[in-house]
């Protein structure tokens, strides 16, 4: 008998190997030092910016290797890290705060490869250096705010409709309304029914009580929104840090992962990311006396607040507006060049502001800045307990009925205006966050890890190749060819799969795969040897060796694949990297060790009719 593969099988194998090889190719071109320019919220990268960047670099005497403009970003490639730093400094001072200028490494992949989607392996933080944060969002705080807003809203509505109530209070996530008599009860029911989305109205006519119950759906949406808003805000804050390829994504119910490659100054990163705050606009209570309140006689419906920079002020309990309606806040100057803070609100915020200010022109309105500072305590559920620290940062007189856009004047110096604007923007974060996990890898350790990993892969590889060549001779060489192909395929597929990053344990996974990938060939070759000993002809021995070994190899690999999948499912970060590498390695090694070696063996020996001996 002869061992031959049909042409199509050979072609498929060749195609698969070439395909993976093609996508592994970008990894040999390395990376250029680069500076990446993108816009913050208020800026925009245009062709003008491109011209500006080019002129700046020319003036600074920097000859870039290339300047690219795509997807609203500019990428400047330079020769050395010195030039990279110099270019960044120049561009930062030239472009100002509306742009993010970040240091980056840009793959030097040739255009033709780039255009078919070829890119080098993405390295994990443990290999390229950087910070990994896991942050927890305090959902309870978001809910407290919603409950407050709800109570205010119900009270306002009833007052507008001239319905007198005994009490409107929160109870858990629900709002309980108690009326004085059946008549009020009836009008309250009709005025509240179908007014509040996300709440079910439950009535109890015997006690003149109405309960607005928060629906589960609404609760879920609230959680999702709190996370989304935090992610958006974190993105904007990360922009301030100037990071090239940040990862900010949700993990689980109430956590957010932030990965900042290349960031070294973790203290600053934490300060910027972790500064949780919110804002409220409230009316000043001008009817009651501040001195009385300070003496302990705080009137009902009002509260005493500390002013930033000393002093106290009496404010009404009613919240006009919370910080989550703020879309933007920036410093501007009026006609006489005095600084002011311009604020824009979303449409709902604009409506609230109009409603609240309509009858109150001439009244003072205060801006309360609320920070959440982590305390030593933990709540019953084991989450961190935040202390709420409230401070009035500005009191201004309402000059007209306000809408979505208004300004606060008389804020003092330009620096103070700047601070207020910053606080207003920061206050848009509705649910506070806390870092619950941090992993920072310095650049030197990252580079060392890459070196160590590569050394291990190469050395392990050489040893296995030597062993196989000596032990199985020519067949061993075929297995070695398969092993090399396997390595190329792992790299090619990992480069191709989005989200697959190479980590240190991932490199260990590759080394391990090298050790284990020969297993399939060992099983096959041992089988062939057995068949030869049993007296079969070489061609028969080859055929039967592969045949008998197949189900064993498949079973063995499928179980390993199961463990890899479980690792992927429960693992985080670098462990996931290991699982991905292992899983890809198992699949590619089965392909190269079974189909790949068979194709080569068939081509080399399968056509010889008078084959009497095998070099195995």
């Amino acid at each position, binding site marked *: 008998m002869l061992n031959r593969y049909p042409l199509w099988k050979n072609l498929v194998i060749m195609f698969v190997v070439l395909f993976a090889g093609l996508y592994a190719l970008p990894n040999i071109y390395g990376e250029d030092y680069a500076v990446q320019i993108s816009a913050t919220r208020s800026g925009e990268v245009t062709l003008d910016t491109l011209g500006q960047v080019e002129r700046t670099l020319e003036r600074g005497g920097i000859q870039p290797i290339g300047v690219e403009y795509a997807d609203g970003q500019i990428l400047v490639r330079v020769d050395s890290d010195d030039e990279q730093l110099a270019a960044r400094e120049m561009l930062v001072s030239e472009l100002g705060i509306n742009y993010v200028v970040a240091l980056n490494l840009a793959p030097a992949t040739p255009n033709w490869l780039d255009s078919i989607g070829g890119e080098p392996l993405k390295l994990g933080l*443990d290999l390229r250096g950087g910070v990994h944060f896991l942050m927890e969002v305090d959902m309870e705080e978001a809910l407290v705010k919603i409950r407050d807003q709800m109570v205010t809203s119900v009270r306002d509505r009833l007052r507008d409709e001239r319905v007198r109530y005994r009490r409107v209070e929160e109870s858990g996530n629900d709002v309980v309304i108690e009326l004085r008599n059946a008549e009020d009860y009836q009008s309250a029911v009709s005025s509240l029914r179908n007014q509040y989305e996300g709440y079910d109205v439950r009535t109890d006519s015997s006690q003149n009580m109405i309960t607005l119950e928060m629906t589960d759906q609404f609760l879920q949406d609230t959680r999702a929104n709190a996370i989304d808003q935090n992610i958006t805000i974190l993105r904007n804050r990360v922009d301030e840090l100037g990071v090239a390829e940040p990862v900010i994504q949700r993990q689980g119910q109430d956590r957010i992962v932030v990965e900042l490659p290349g960031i*070294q100054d*973790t*203290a600053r990163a*934490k300060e910027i990311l972790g500064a949780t705050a919110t804002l409220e606009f409230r009316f000043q209570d001008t009817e009651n006396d501040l001195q009385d309140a300070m003496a302990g006689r705080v009137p009902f419906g009002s509260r005493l607040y500390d002013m930033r920079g000393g002093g106290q002020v009496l404010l009404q309990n009613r919240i006009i507006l919370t910080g989550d309606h703020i879309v933007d806040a920036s410093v501007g100057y009026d006609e006489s060049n005095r600084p002011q803070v311009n604020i824009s609100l979303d449409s709902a915020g604009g409506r609230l502001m109009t409603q609240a200010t309509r009858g109150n022109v001439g009244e003072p309105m205060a801006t309360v800045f609320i920070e959440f500072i982590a*305390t*030593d*305590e*933990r709540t019953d559920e084991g989450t961190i307990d935040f202390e709420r620290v409230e401070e009035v940062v500005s009191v201004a007189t309402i000059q007209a009925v306000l809408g979505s856009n208004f300004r606060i004047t008389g804020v003092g110096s330009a620096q103070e205006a700047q601070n207020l604007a910053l606080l207003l923007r920061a206050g848009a974060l509705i649910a506070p966050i*806390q*870092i*619950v*996990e*941090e*992993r*920072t*890898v*310095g650049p*030197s350790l990252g580079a*060392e*890890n890459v070196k*160590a*990993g590569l*050394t*291990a892969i190469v*050395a*392990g590889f050489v*040893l*296995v190749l030597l*062993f196989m060549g000596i032990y199985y001779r020519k067949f061993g060489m075929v297995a070695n060819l398969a092993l090399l192909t396997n390595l190329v395929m792992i790299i090619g597929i990992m480069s191709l799969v989005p989200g697959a990053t190479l980590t240190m*344990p991932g490199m*260990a996974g590759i080394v*391990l795969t090298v*050790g*284990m990938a020969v*297993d399939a060939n*060992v099983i096959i070759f*041992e089988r062939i*040897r*057995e068949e030869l000993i049993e007296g079969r002809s070489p061609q028969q021995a080859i055929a039967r060796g*592969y*045949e008998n070994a*197949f*189900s*064993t190899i498949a*079973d*063995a690999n499928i*179980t390993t694949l*199961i*463990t890899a999948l*479980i*690792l992927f*499912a*429960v*693992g985080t970060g*670098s*462990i996931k990297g290991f699982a991905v590498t*292992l899983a890809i390695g198992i699949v590619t090694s089965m392909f190269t060790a*079974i189909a790949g070696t*068979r194709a080569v063996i068939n081509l080399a020996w399968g056509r010889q009719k008078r084959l009497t001996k095998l070099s195995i």
Partner: protein
Amino acid sequence: MFQITKIDENNPLKFMSINKWTTILSVVLILLSLGSLAVNKLNWGLDFTGGTLVEVGFEQPADLAELRTVLEGNEFGDAVVQNYGTQRDVLVRIPPRDDAASDTIGNELLEVLQSNIDGGIDVRRVEFVGPQVGEELAEAGGLAMLVALICILVYVSFRFEWRLALSAVAGLAQDVILILGLFSLLQMQVDLTILAALLAVIGYSLNDSIVVADRIRENFRKLRKNTPEEVIDISLSQTLSRTLVTSLTTLLVLLVLMFFGGQMIFGFAVALSMGVIVGTYSSVFTRSTLVLAMGISRDDLMPPEIEKEGEEQDNYL
């Protein structure tokens, strides 16, 4: 052609004749491991306990005693200071503190070091794991192990037979216990990478036992005159060469990882090397002994779809 073992159906190596001794050995080793686990406990790493870890590189070999004094004087009396890899690399560990502001400990520690130590320090690594997260990671890790073992039990029962499946999983349990025992005895840190290594060991060791189980099944069907003990001896002899070659190549690369892979991979490589050795032992002796003890017979391994499998193979090859 040279070979580690000669395959001879009529004169196989008598593995099962010494199974009394290997059983005693297994029991002793397991008891020792469990004893060490009970007495010494495991040295849980940061991933599971929570806390802060800072790795810094100094320009000159670091004076650990001086470092400790500096740290003690700056409210870091609970810090554990040790060399890591070289004399210039120092690892400082702070146990989890019971205040929520613990996420800044790493930065505070670095400030103290920077202002008190002459010459520049290079921040190599900072890790902080909140106690909550640590607990979750430990839970997830334990769950992963359990799920892996159960999935494997189901798959192997489905593909082979319950006795083989049960013995395979029992072997895995032995592997895991012995490795953890060693880690407890040597007080090596058990962190997430060790967990990954344990799962990889499970995969590897299973690989071994499936190759053996496959051969046992095949031989039970083929060799109708031999006793179960003889069939197992023959199967083990036939697969011994493969078992040793694969273990050897894997050990080769693991040794390379141990020596060249850097500190972060060292524990991983140790756990896996140990796993390869123990796994080889358990797939040759422990599992076969268990299969025999559970009274496996030819009838148990005679599923109806033998021929069908042969056909499938042709299609794949």
